[in-house]
């Protein structure tokens, strides 16, 4: 049996704070989770939930107060395994006196590629992230979105087994986000393991095999985006059109919302058949019947809903 790609055991991070650093603030508490080989795992949580702290601990940028973590079966302090890891930091920043091609070449050198191989890989990556024509411009002239693309390019430059992306969609316009989503899917199809943090729930629903929701430094749930929210149906949505009138039709219309020529009505699951009978009686044309399931967003908001300030930080793009 192969080891999980990522495994944490009671991972905890506390920071000293206060005037004399005598108080402790817990950023991450007892995180125990696994990311399996070959899966796309979304790490969800509002700003300040502990997502970046976890990723920094995995990458050896900060050190745990307690607990342990292993990547690809090896402890995180073993930097040799970084050969097999690609990492995109949150809001990446690179040497602004270098061009994108130079930065990628610099990073490629650490992986021991020959000059020819470096040149080929740099060209390929710049093309992949849409910076082919901007490769010879110094990074100080780059926008935030362009830097994000450079960050993604350096993360996958060496064809790693595991890719860790901290807020990969941050700073990108809709086209950029779509391109990043495509790259993540491409990596997934190539059998790579991907861990990415985000607070954009639609991205997680679209890309992830499993998600972990973290809030207040604690892991609140792990599972497939569909299953984590529970299978209980909230309601059924019926979309229909009404050609005729009459008292029955008026009664039905009173319960529905009109949208152009069609009507939309939500009913409890138990009332579905009775409502369908009424619609048949009123000679309505049923367009669709859809089960309304709680979304990841509902689950997410429920977890963090006690704190309105946190909820306000959630970006539910496209909703």
């Amino acid at each position: 049996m192969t080891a999980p790609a990522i495994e944490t055991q009671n991972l905890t991070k506390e920071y000293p704070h206060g005037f004399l650093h005598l108080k402790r603030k817990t950023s991450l508490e007892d995180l125990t989770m696994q990311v399996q080989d070959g899966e796309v795992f979304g790490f969800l949580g509002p700003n300040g939930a502990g997502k970046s702290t976890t990723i920094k601990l995995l990458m050896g940028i900060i050190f745990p107060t307690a607990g342990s973590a292993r990547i690809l079966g090896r402890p995180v302090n073993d930097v040799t395994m970084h050969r097999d890891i690609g990492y995109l930091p949150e809001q990446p920043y690179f040497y602004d006196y270098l061009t994108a091609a130079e930065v990628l070449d610099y990073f490629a050198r650490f992986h021991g590629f020959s000059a020819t191989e470096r040149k080929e890989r740099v060209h390929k990556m710049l093309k992949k992230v849409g910076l082919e024509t901007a490769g010879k411009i110094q990074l100080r002239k780059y926008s935030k979105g362009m830097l994000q693309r450079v960050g993604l390019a350096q993360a996958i430059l060496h064809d790693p087994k595991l890719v860790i992306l901290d807020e990969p969609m941050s700073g990108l316009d809709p086209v950029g986000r779509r391109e990043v989503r495509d790259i993540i899917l491409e990596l997934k199809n190539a059998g790579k393991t991907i861990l990415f943090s985000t607070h954009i729930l639609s991205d997680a629903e679209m890309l992830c095999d499993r998600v972990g929701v973290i809030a207040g430094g604690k892991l609140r749930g792990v599972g497939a985006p569909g299953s984590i929210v529970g299978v209980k149906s909230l309601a059924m949505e019926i979309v229909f059109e009404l050609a005729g009138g009459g008292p029955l039709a008026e009664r039905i219309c009173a319960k529905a919302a009109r949208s152009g020529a069609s009507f939309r009505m939500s009913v409890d699951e138990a009332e579905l058949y009775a409502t369908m009978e009424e619609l048949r009686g009123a000679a309505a044309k049923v367009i669709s019947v859809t089960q309304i399931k709680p979304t990841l967003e509902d689950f997410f908001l429920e977890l963090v809903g006690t704190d309105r300030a946190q909820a306000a930080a959630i970006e539910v793009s496209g909703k």
Partner: protein
Amino acid sequence: MSRILIVARNTFREAVRDRVLYNLVFFALLMIASAVIVGQISMDIETVVMVSLGLSAISLIGLLIAVFTGVGLVSKEIDKRTLHAVLAKPLHRWEFLLGKFSGLVLTLTVNTAAMAAGLFLAMLFVTHSIARGDLAVLVAVYFILLKLALVVALAMLFSCFTSPLLAILFTGGLYVAGLFVAQLRSLETTQLNAPTQRFLSVLSYLLPNFGNYDVMGAAAHGRAVPASLVLHNTLYTFLYCAIVLSAAAVIFSRKDLK
């Protein structure tokens, strides 16, 4: 080793592309030009004045670069978070530290060599010949370079555990204190109580002895510098830098980055 060189090469490239460095080189050339002018209006001591001024300028400019750039070598990378992507590569933190140190020392070597070349050209301009005694100037330049390497190591050590401003103050303070090590050792013979004498004695050996690198007087007057001093200063610098950089690596390896 190759990973250290990769970081060193990039550090050198950063310095070369940094316009402040060019300004300092320009300043050095200006200082040397001034030395030539002063040398021309001095009676028979043109070479002495010119060498003294030239070496002082090389030392001062080198110190400014060593302290300010040395402190920023690590702290700037932490502040700007450029370090995050770098440390995600198969690179140990001590390798990064050593690479940054080597890169700046290489920069200082090139910079110092350029200024020394300017000084020799100026000397040639005034005296129309290079005498054997002028070799002492080369030794003095070499000592300045050794001194700068030690200052860079100290600046990097302090920047690993304190703010850039404090690191500059600590490095500057230690440099000034290090100039008076010989005087500190001579205090042992005065009427001090035993514990104070012991403390000062230990302190005088712990402090970097920057006074040892000053052979400006000998160089200006064309006196030869003893080979034993060259060997002593070389070994002393390597050993002291190794200790300071090891301490910096230990601290940096355990440091939580932002």
